[in-house]
C-alpha cells in the first residue's frame, strides 16, 4: 500500500516537473507581457500594464513581418497541400517495388537541413532566372515566391505523410463506384475522394501553415524584401528585446489554446451527435423529431472555450480603460527612493568607516562636528533594513497624505517627511 502511494506520488511529481518544463517558459513569457519593466521578466512584479501590446501593434516591422508570414503561410499551404496530395495519390498508384524508392525520395526533403534547402532554393532559382534571361528583380527572384517555394519543398513532404495515412484507409472501390455510375474522373475526385480526404487536408493545411509560420532556417536565405515574422524577431533580438515580444508570445499561446479548445469542442460535439443518432429510434429519425445535442451540453471543451473567450473579452475590456500610469509613476518613484537610500547607506557606511579609522587614530572630535547629511540625528540607531522597510511602506502611500500626518508618529513620520523632501528634490 505504501509502495503504491509512493509510486503514485512520484508519478504526479514527474508529471508536474514535466509540465513545468514544457509550459514554464510560456507561462513566464506570458506573465512578462503584462509586467511593466523594459526588459521582459516576470519577477519582480511591478505594474500590470498592457502597454507592450500596444507597443507590439505599433511596431511597423513586426506588423509587416506578421503580414508577410501570413502571405507566405497561405502560399505554402496551397502549394504544399496540393503537392502533398498529388504525392500521396501517386504513392497509392505505384507497385510495391517502386513504392519504397518513391517514398524515400519524397521523404528526403524532411531529412535535409533547412539551411541547405534555403541555399539551394536561392541558387537554383537564380540559375533559372539567368537562364531565362530575366532581370534580377523578376518574379523568380521575388522573396515571397522563393520563400513559398523553398518552404514547400519540405512542408509538402509533411503534408504527404498526413494525407497518405488517410488515403490508405480509402477504398478505391468508391472511386470505381462513382465512375461506374457515370461520373467523370474529375467528378469522382471532387465528389467522393476529396470529401473523404477533407479532415486530413485540414490537418495538413494547419500543419503546413504552422511549419511555415515558424520557419527560420530556410526563410533566412530566401526572404528578400519580404522578411517574415521569425526573421524580424531574430533581427530585433540582436538589438535587445522588449516585452512586446512577450506580448506576441502571449497572443500566440492564447490563439493556440483557443484553436485547440475549439477543435476539441467540435470533435466532442460530433461524437455526441453520433451517439444521439445511434440512440435515437428509427421513428425519431424518420419523423425528424430527433434532437441534436446542444453545443454546450456535456461538452467540457466547449465550456472551457466559452470561459476562455469570456476571460479574453474581459481582459481586453479592462485594457481599454485601465491606465497603469499612476502605478508606473509610483514604482519609478520607489525605485528612485531605493536608489537614494542605497546611496545614503553607502555614504553612512563610508562615514562610519571613516569614524572608525579616526577612532583608531585616537581623534573622535572631528567626527561629531561633521553633520551626517540628512540623516544626522539617528546615526546608526536604525538598522538599515528597518528603515528601508518603513520607507517603502510609506512610499506607496500617496505623498500628500504622508505629509498630512505631520509629526504625529515619531519614527515613520520622520521617514515620511524624508519622502516628501526627497520628492521635492
Amino acid at each position, binding site marked *: 500500500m505504501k509502495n503504491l502511494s509512493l509510486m503514485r506520488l512520484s508519478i504526479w511529481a514527474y508529471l508536474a516537473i514535466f509540465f513545468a518544463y514544457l509550459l514554464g517558459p510560456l507561462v513566464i513569457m506570458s506573465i512578462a507581457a503584462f509586467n511593466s519593466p523594459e526588459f521582459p521578466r516576470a519577477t519582480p512584479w511591478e505594474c500590470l500594464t498592457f502597454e507592450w501590446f500596444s507597443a507590439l501593434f505599433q511596431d511597423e516591422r513586426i506588423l509587416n513581418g506578421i503580414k508577410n508570414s501570413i502571405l507566405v503561410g497561405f502560399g505554402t499551404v496551397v502549394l504544399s497541400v496540393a503537392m502533398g496530395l498529388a504525392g500521396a495519390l501517386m504513392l497509392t498508384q505505384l507497385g510495391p517495388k517502386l513504392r519504397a524508392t518513391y517514398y524515400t525520395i519524397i521523404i528526403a526533403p524532411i531529412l535535409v537541413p533547412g539551411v541547405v534547402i534555403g541555399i539551394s532554393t536561392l541558387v537554383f532559382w537564380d540559375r533559372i532566372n539567368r537562364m531565362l534571361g530575366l532581370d534580377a528583380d523578376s518574379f523568380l527572384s521575388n522573396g515571397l515566391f522563393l520563400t513559398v517555394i523553398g518552404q514547400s519543398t519540405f512542408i509538402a513532404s509533411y503534408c504527404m505523410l498526413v494525407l497518405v495515412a488517410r488515403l490508405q484507409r480509402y477504398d478505391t472501390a468508391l472511386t470505381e463506384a462513382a465512375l*461506374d*455510375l457515370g461520373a467523370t474522373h474529375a467528378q469522382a475526385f471532387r465528389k467522393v475522394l476529396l470529401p473523404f480526404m477533407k479532415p486530413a487536408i485540414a490537418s495538413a493545411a494547419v500543419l503546413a501553415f504552422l511549419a511555415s509560420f515558424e520557419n527560420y532556417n530556410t526563410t533566412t536565405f530566401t526572404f528578400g524584401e519580404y522578411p517574415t515574422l521569425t526573421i524580424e524577431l531574430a533581427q530585433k533580438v540582436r538589438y535587445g528585446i522588449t516585452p512586446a515580444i512577450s506580448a506576441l508570445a502571449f497572443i500566440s499561446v492564447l490563439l493556440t489554446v483557443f484553436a485547440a479548445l475549439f477543435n476539441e469542442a467540435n470533435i466532442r460535439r460530433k461524437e455526441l451527435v453520433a451517439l444521439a443518432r445511434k440512440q435515437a429510434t428509427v421513428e425519431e429519425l424518420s419523423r425528424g423529431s430527433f434532437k441534436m445535442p446542444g453545443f454546450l451540453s456535456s461538452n467540457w471543451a466547449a465550456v472551457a472555450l466559452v470561459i476562455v473567450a469570456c476571460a479574453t473579452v474581459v481582459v481586453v475590456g479592462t485594457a481599454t480603460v485601465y491606465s497603469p500610469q499612476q502605478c508606473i509613476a509610483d514604482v519609478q518613484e520607489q525605485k528612485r527612493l531605493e536608489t537614494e537610500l542605497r546611496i545614503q547607506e553607502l555614504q553612512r557606511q563610508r562615514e562610519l568607516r571613516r569614524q572608525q579609522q579616526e577612532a583608531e587614530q585616537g581623534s573622535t572630535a572631528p567626527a561629531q562636528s561633521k553633520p551626517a547629511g540628512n540623516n544626522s540625528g539617528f546615526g546608526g540607531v536604525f538598522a538599515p533594513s528597518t528603515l528601508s522597510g518603513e520607507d517603502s511602506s510609506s512610499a506607496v502611500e500617496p505623498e500628500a497624505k504622508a505629509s498630512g500626518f505631520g509629526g504625529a508618529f515619531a519614527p515613520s513620520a520622520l521617514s515620511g517627511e524624508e519622502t516628501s523632501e526627497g520628492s521635492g528634490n
Partner: protein
Amino acid sequence: MSAGVGVDLEKLWIRFGDFVAVRDANVHINGGDFFSFLGPSGCGKTTILRAVSGFLEPSEGQVLIGGNNMKGIGPNKRPTALIFQNLALFPLMKVWENITFSMEVKGASAKERRKRADELLDMIALPDQGDKLPWELSGGQRQRVAIARALCAEPDVLLLDEPLSALDLKLRQHMRTELREIQKRVGITFIYITHDQGEALTMSDNIAVMRAGVIDQIGDGKTIYNDPATAFAASFVGENNVFRGTVKQVQSDTALISTNRSGDLLARVSSANQGKMKAGDDAMMFIRPEAFALAPVGAQGDHFVTATVTNEEFEGNAFNIFMEGEGGKEMKVSLPNLGQSFDSHKGQPMTLQYDVQNAVAMPAGDLATE
C-alpha cells in the same frame, strides 16, 4: 425494356503478367436474363465482371454489350452498373444522395433527385430512410440501397459481385427472392456472381460454372445439376458421390465403367461428353446422395452398390447416411424426411440402388476441393 440488352464475351483472355485469370471465355448472355457466374474463390469471376463493366481491358478477345464492341469505352460510358462485393456505398453521403449519385453527376436538381430517391426507396421497402447515413442502416438495408443506387443509373445490364456474401443465412435467403423479384420487375439483364451454388441455382436463368479461369459449363440450373459437363462441375454444384475407374464399354449414351473399388457400374454419359469416351479411358461416375435408394441386402435391383452404414445424421429435412463400401469407399445417401421412423442401421450392410439415368459418366478430371 422488353427484350433487354444482351452481353457477349468472345474469346476473352485476361492476363495479369504471366498469370492467366480468364482463359478463352465464350459466353452469350440473353437480354433480360438472370445470368450467374458460379465458381470457387479466386477463379476469376470478379475479373470477368470488371472486364464487362470496363475497369479492365481484356488482354485478348472482346466484350460486346447489346452487340456493340466495348473496346476503349470507359466504365462511366458503359450501360452497366456494378454492385460491388463490399457495396462501396459513399460513406459521407446520405442514403438518398447515394442512391441518386448517378443523377447528380448528370446535373439533376436536388428536387428531382429527392423525388426519384423516394420512389426507389419505396421500391426497396425503405421508405423515409433517405436521410440516414449508410452506416446507420442494417446490412440488408445497405444491400438494398446499393441495388437502388445501381438501378437509379438505369443501366441496361446490372452486374452484381457476390452482393449477398456478407449477410447471414436468413437474410441471404430473403434477399435472393427479393433480387429475383426486382429483376423481373425492371426486366434488365442481371449478371450475378457467386460462389454459393444454392444461390446460383435458385435465382438464375442460366449459369456459367468457372474453374481457375476456365468456363467449364454454361446452362440452366437443371442442366448444370443433372447433366454436368465436367467432373469439376459435377463435384462443385451440389453434393455428389464420385466413382473413379476406366471405361469398359460405351453403348450409345450409356457407359459401363469398371470402377476401382465398387465393381462394374452402368451410367449415362453426360450430354457434353457423348462420343468423347471410348473403352480404356479414365472415367468418373457421379451419383447424387438423393439418387440412391436404400434396400436390404438381397433385395437387389438392376444397378446397385453394397455398403455398410458407418454414421447417420439428421438434418431436419433429410437424413444423411454415411456408408462404407468395399475397399473403404465412402458414400453418402440422403433420404427425405417424410415423417418415417428412422431406426439406426449402424453397422448394417445395405444395398444402394440407383437408376442409370441418375448416374452420370464423364472423362476423369479435377474435382472441386472443398
